[in-house]
């Protein structure tokens, strides 16, 4: 499908891209085109395949089938070739060198692609200054990047792409960490560059921005393109529907209503400078509460504060009606609080170690007598947990790295269930987990909560929040801005609440 924005032949074509990791299909026959001066939005939920598609485009990941053409020429799977052909990807973390100055960061990529033998300080600095001027951006080129605010880092990343004569700039979630005025400024710059014929591919799930800046949109869901065309042809409702679909996980799980109980943990006026302010919430046994917010909304910091991993600087935490102050996470654990971190690979698991050790690490005391571990008891508990949670593995001795994402997540869950927590906090419980496992994990959490555990889920996956929770809190810019009964709210309402940013 061609679009009206450029009319000419597209400068970027991705055709029938296919990619699978093991048995999991991530991309299925995805095609995408981009004309000169076109701004296209690549929209989709978490796990829809957006990131993989971008990695294929930038040459970091090799597609199983299909091809990428730039200016009509076929691009091999090689990051250097993609950069040299004028394609720049700005990742969410910007991939800048924090200890180097602004101009060094801007000039660096150019030095690499030109294969400079010597460091051409003067030329590189001039290039950086010129680029910043062209963007009409006022940043001191000699400041170290780590001293800059996030928005300026973003601009430096764009300047770096431009300095390298990028004709196509791909931006992954470019506005998550920016304030409204910063977003507006960014969109102005995009508008200016567009006139020079620079094309943009925005990866985003913020509907407002999609409409503000994009000419065309491609919606991915479960690895395939479900909708594509000029932005004028859609309204917000259709877009949201296309992104979320009506898949398995959007249906609410059946549950019994548990009788109201006094809260296990209650928080009032909780705040931590720069992360969240004035948070009030109550977590009750037998109830699942979701905190839904975008990346950078303070949701992770709130969860980690309740786990004692960070210290609040305002407000009170009460457990069973008594005020507590956590020294660190071990004291929160002693109070019966458990936390499943966001990134299970770096924060959750000991990848190289056995499944058994990963399961029992937090409950060693149960199988210790006189300071000695009962090896048989540990093994037995690990095996029982593997069976209970239906973790697919022949035994508990292989390294946990050998398991699939869904099974790995169950190992982390098993670890805390061995600990019999009174409150289980989960941050992104099903990120990178396939649909079937996702459903299993949700069912597990519901039954856990019905057996008297308080469950708090932190997520940006709206269908998940609705499927799973009893109550949903929306977090925007460090504040809880809305509260919904999960049985009575629909996705669109929730979505609009989550992306609303003008309430401060």
């Amino acid at each position, binding site marked *: 499908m061609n679009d009206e924005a450029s009319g000419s032949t597209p400068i970027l074509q991705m055709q029938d891209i296919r990619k699978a*990791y093991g048995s999991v299909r*991530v991309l299925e026959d995805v095609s995408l085109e981009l004309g000169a001066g076109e701004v296209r939005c690549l929209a989709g939920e*978490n*796990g829809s*395949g957006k*990131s*993989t598609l971008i*990695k294929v485009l930038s040459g*970091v*990941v090799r597609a199983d089938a299909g091809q990428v053409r730039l200016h009509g020429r076929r691009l091999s799977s090689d990051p250097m070739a993609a950069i040299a052909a004028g394609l720049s990807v700005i990742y969410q973390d910007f991939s800048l060198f924090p200890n180097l100055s602004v101009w060094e960061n801007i000039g660096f990529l150019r030095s690499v692609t030109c294969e400079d033998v010597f460091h051409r300080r003067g030329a590189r600095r001039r290039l950086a200054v010129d680029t910043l001027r062209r963007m009409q951006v006022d940043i001191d080129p000699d400041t170290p990047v780590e001293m800059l605010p996030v928005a300026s880092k973003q601009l430096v990343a764009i300047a770096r792409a431009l300095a390298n004569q990028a004709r196509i700039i791909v931006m992954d979630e470019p506005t998550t960490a920016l304030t409204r005025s910063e977003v507006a400024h960014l969109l102005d710059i995009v508008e200016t560059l567009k006139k020079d014929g620079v094309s943009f591919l925005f990866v985003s799930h913020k509907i407002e921005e999609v409409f503000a800046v994009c000419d065309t949109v491609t919606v991915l869901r479960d690895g395939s393109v479900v909708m594509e065309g000029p932005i004028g042809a859609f309204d917000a409702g259709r877009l949201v529907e296309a992104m979320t679909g009506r898949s398995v996980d959007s249906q609410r799980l059946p549950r019994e209503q548990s009788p109201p109980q006094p809260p296990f943990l209650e928080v009032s006026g909780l705040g931590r400078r720069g992360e969240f302010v004035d948070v009030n919430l109550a977590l009750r046994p037998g109830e699942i509460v979701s905190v839904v917010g975008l990346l950078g909304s303070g949701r992770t910091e709130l969860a980690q504060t309740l786990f004692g*991993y960070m210290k609040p600087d305002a407000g009170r935490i009460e457990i069973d009606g008594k005020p507590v102050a956590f020294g660190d*996470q*071990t004291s929160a*654990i002693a109070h019966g609080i458990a*936390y499943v*971190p966001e990134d299970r*690979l*770096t*924060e*959750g*698991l*000991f*990848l*190289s*170690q*056995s499944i*058994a*050790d990963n399961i029992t*690490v*937090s409950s*060693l*005391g149960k199988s*210790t007598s006189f*300071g*000695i*571990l009962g*090896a048989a008891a540990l*093994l037995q508990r690990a095996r029982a947990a593997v069976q209970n949670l239906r973790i697919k593995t022949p035994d508990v*001795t*292989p*390294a946990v*790295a*050998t398991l699939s*994402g869904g099974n790995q997540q169950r190992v982390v869950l098993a*670890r805390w269930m061995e600990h019999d927590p009174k409150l289980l906090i989960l941050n992104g419980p099903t*990120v*990178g987990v396939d649909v079937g496992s996702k459903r299993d994990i949700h069912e597990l959490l519901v039954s856990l909560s019905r057996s008297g555990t308080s469950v708090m889920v932190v997520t940006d996956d709206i269908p998940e929040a609705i499927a799973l929770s009893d109550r949903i809190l929306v977090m925007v810019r460090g504040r809880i801005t809305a509260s919904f009964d999960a049985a009575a709210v629909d996705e669109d309402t929730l979505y609009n609440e989550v992306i609303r940013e003008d309430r401060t």
Partner: protein
Amino acid sequence: MDARQDTTGSHLKNLGVLTLLVFVTLAVVSPAFLSASNLKSMGFQFPEFGLLSLAVLPTMITGGIDLSVVAVANLASIVAAVTMKAGPEVAWLAIPAGLAVGVVCGAFNGFLVAYLRLPPILATLGSMQLFAGIGIIITRGPAITGLPDWYTAFGNWTIGGMLPLPLVLFALVASGLAFLLRRTPVGLRLRLFGANPVAAGFAGVPGKKLIVQTYAIAGFIAALAGLVVLARVNSANADYGSSYLLLVILINILAGVRPAGGFGTVTGIVLAVICLQFISSGLNILSFSAFSRDLVFGGLLIAVMSYRAAFAPFDVKAFLKRKAHPS
């Protein structure tokens, strides 16, 4: 019992075969190697650096290292020697005092690493100098000699005329450490901490306390090594055995301890220590120059590391593949 057997198990087997091979070769080539006097002298020699290697092991499992073990051993032996010479009424305090010095030095290292967050290699490099410096101030330079006879008798004492006391001590410490690492919560936690300190934090492992404990254990074992040296050489010196440090690191690497943390066994250390002792004695008996020892040891280290890098499928690849997984 755990994942170590996946990678380290086969390494241990190879190391065992290598040790056996060296033993058999030397026994065949030179009958003197199997003589009672040679076996006995080996039994007196290797426990010293064997104990020092065991001291470093727990710190390396946590992903750190302790470069100060030799300095701690010397300081412990100096303090013990000074106490002994202070008079017969306090002489009984010498051994506890030496061991206490080791624990304090180790805990200090642990404090630097856990609370001040200094990189272990730099923290213990600094404390190595510090401890050696304290030793020199106490001794004012020259070695302390003229220890009471009862103590030096330990150094030559054998059980049943065959088992030297240092060897027995080494065996005891090795089994004790093995038990600690495999069968106690501390051992399991420190291995998991080494595998992923961030995940350990989220799993409620008390990291700081654990690190201090680990380095204190290292200091204790190092002090024990110092006391063994003191008994054998009959003098305490602030710069004794400086060449031991690299040997001790070499043994840990040879033993299959992963410098990044998370893997390491006492069995590996014992095999590596014995293997190197065989080689060293063998070179001696075959009347190679003392300098050839370094060449052989260095060559062996490079060979073992290259072999492991080339053939042992350390799961970096699998890990990276998983990282590329979509989210």
